[in-house]
């Protein structure tokens, strides 16, 4: 078996004083796409934020190995430079910083190399086209005045340009109309073309997954993964929802 890209063991996470994740186990190999599904409040976003290192999500137990490294010992920026990426559910608006200069700065941090303005601009234009975003977005302030759909596309844009080894998509499809879901999904497909690019897709909606290759599906309920399976689980959830799992998460 190939060496795991990320290996999560007994991960427990608390927000304020209450524990949300009660011991999550998950392994992913390089190039794999895994899906986490679960009802609202199950702890899906908590898992994503804890892996990325949001200070509001306190790890109370367990360990996470990312590549060769102890992920939980790394700062947020070290995790990003090491190849971890998270697409935010609510991307933050940063006035006065253009999308282009931001991604270029981030890429310089990720690669440790100075990016040539013109080369980068050309590269960025290609990705903008693929995501059906107007070129003018490059000049706009990061997420400022973007619609919900535009913000999500801008996240995918960042993912495609930063080329992380593991991208976590936290409800990237939520609140999007059908066309936007299709565009985002095409962007994700593009990302999957890289054989080493791994994806952890968090969703409670199967639409975004219809055109994607999926290796494994995990059902997260009440802070625990209660079921691991293949892509067939997606159809199952679509048909029956999470009701049959509700009892399983509790001790």
């Amino acid at each position: 078996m190939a060496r795991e890209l990320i290996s999560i063991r007994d991960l427990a996470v608390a927000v304020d004083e209450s524990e949300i994740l009660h011991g999550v186990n998950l392994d992913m190999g390089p190039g794999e796409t895994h899906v986490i599904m679960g009802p609202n409040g199950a702890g899906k976003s908590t898992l994503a934020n804890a892996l990325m290192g949001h200070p509001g999500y306190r790890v109370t137990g367990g360990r996470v190995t990312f590549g060769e490294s102890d992920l939980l010992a790394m700062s947020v920026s070290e995790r990003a430079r090491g190849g971890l990426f998270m697409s935010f559910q609510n991307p933050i608006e940063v006035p006065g910083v253009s999308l282009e200069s931001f991604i270029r700065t981030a890429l310089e941090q990720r690669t440790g190399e100075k990016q040539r303005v013109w080369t980068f601009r050309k590269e960025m234009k290609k990705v903008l086209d693929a995501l059906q975003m107007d070129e003018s977005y490059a000049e706009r302030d990061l997420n400022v005045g973007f619609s919900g759909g535009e913000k999500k596309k801008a996240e995918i844009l960042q993912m495609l340009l930063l080329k992380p080894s593991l991208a976590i998509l936290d409800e990237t499809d939520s609140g999007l109309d059908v066309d936007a879901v299709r565009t985002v999904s095409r962007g994700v497909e593009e990302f999957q073309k890289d054989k080493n690019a791994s994806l952890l897709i968090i969703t409670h909606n199967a639409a975004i997954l219809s055109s994607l290759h999926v290796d494994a599906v995990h059902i997260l309920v009440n802070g625990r993964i209660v079921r691991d399976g293949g892509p067939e689980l997606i159809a199952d959830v679509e048909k029956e929802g999470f009701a049959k799992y509700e009892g399983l998460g509790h001790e």
Partner: protein
Amino acid sequence: MNEEKTRIEDINRAFYDFRFDDRDAYKVQSGLTQEIVEQISREKKDPDWMREFRLRSLDIFHRTDMPDWGPSIEGLDMRNIVTYVRPNTERMHTRWEDVPEDIKSTFERLGIPQSERTSLAGVGAQYDSELVYHNVREEVAAQGVIYTDLESALHGEYADMIREHFMKLVPPTDHKFAALHGAVWSGGSFVYVPAGASVEIPLQSYFRLNAAGAGQFEHTLIIVEEGAYLHFIEGCSAPKYNVANLHAGCVELYVGKNATLRYSTIENWSKNMYNLNTKRAKVEAGGKIEWVSGSFGSHVSYLYPMSVLNGDGARSEFTGVTFAGAGQNLDTGCKAVHNAPNTTSYVNTRSISKDGGVSTFRSAVVVNPQAVNSKSAVSCQSLMLDAKSRSDTIPAMDIRTSQADIGHEARIGRISDDAVFYLMSRGLSEEDARALIVSGFAENVSKELPLEYAVEMNNLIRIEMKGAIG
């Protein structure tokens, strides 16, 4: 009689051979006297009217109370005002070793060349900048533009023009420090742009203010005639070090019909400075004043550039950023007075405070009854970088006509942890993430500046942000 004479000699010695030892210190006469002002006037070879003007201002200075609002200026030793007005001669020979470390390292981090550093620190003569200044003068002179120092202009061809305009916008009766300025002003720039001329390159007082001893009570007088255009840049983002810590300059700008004047300032006085500066513009019909103002330095600042919109359709735009760090109390903003129909004033400011710094935005908009169909929009945003810093907003509006369109918006915020996390999740360090948020916040000002100043301002923010964490 003999005794009287001896006393005068003592004063003279105090002024010219001033040494910081105890024996001399108590001989300094407290208070500013007529003799001192007359002496300044003699040295400057003032015309008679200017000497009288100085003495009248001195009289007003003595009769005027200290301001009883705004940040405390108790640290200003008004009993020894003489030491501000006539700093000891040592000042001209400030030693490089005496320049505070933080200023030296700022020079380094801003990438200021060695020769400029000594000049900015007031310890050396100007080097390249003198030459640049000279070349700029030659170039604009071809268009009939006069760019010179105010003292020599007092004696030349433009003497009458100066007499007609000098401290007419900011009279010595305006406040105590305007009176002080009228009495002891020294140095500064005079710019005259004839009708229809458009000055393509920005003129910069930077070259002048670096001269040793200049820049403490300097007077800037700019006249832009009908249909002309000028961009004038005052100061420099490198810290300006002065031993004497009072700055009471005065700026008077006359903007003619359909003329445009852009007046940009990046002010970065050393952090012991009391910056009590007065700036005012009068704008005729169809004319426009654009203020761009960055305030970084000083211990205490009172700074409110004022636009007097006197002609139909006159416009004023004010864009400002203020950054108050530890030990700083910066009270900044602007005023606009609408005296004619169809006048507009726009105000857009950002203030940043950190490490216990206090930043206050203070503005006044006055719309007089005759100023029908006028518009004013004031927008101020503040960003506090930690819980011990402070930010206040004091916008005043005095609207005397119902036919005006007036808007005001104020926002005060902090850097959210979520924003820092978001940027860090893309690989930026915490320090870089915060600096990026702050420079983005100030971007509305930096984008108004010429590129090299914008770069310097961003560097400055980065420097100020160092150590802002934890």
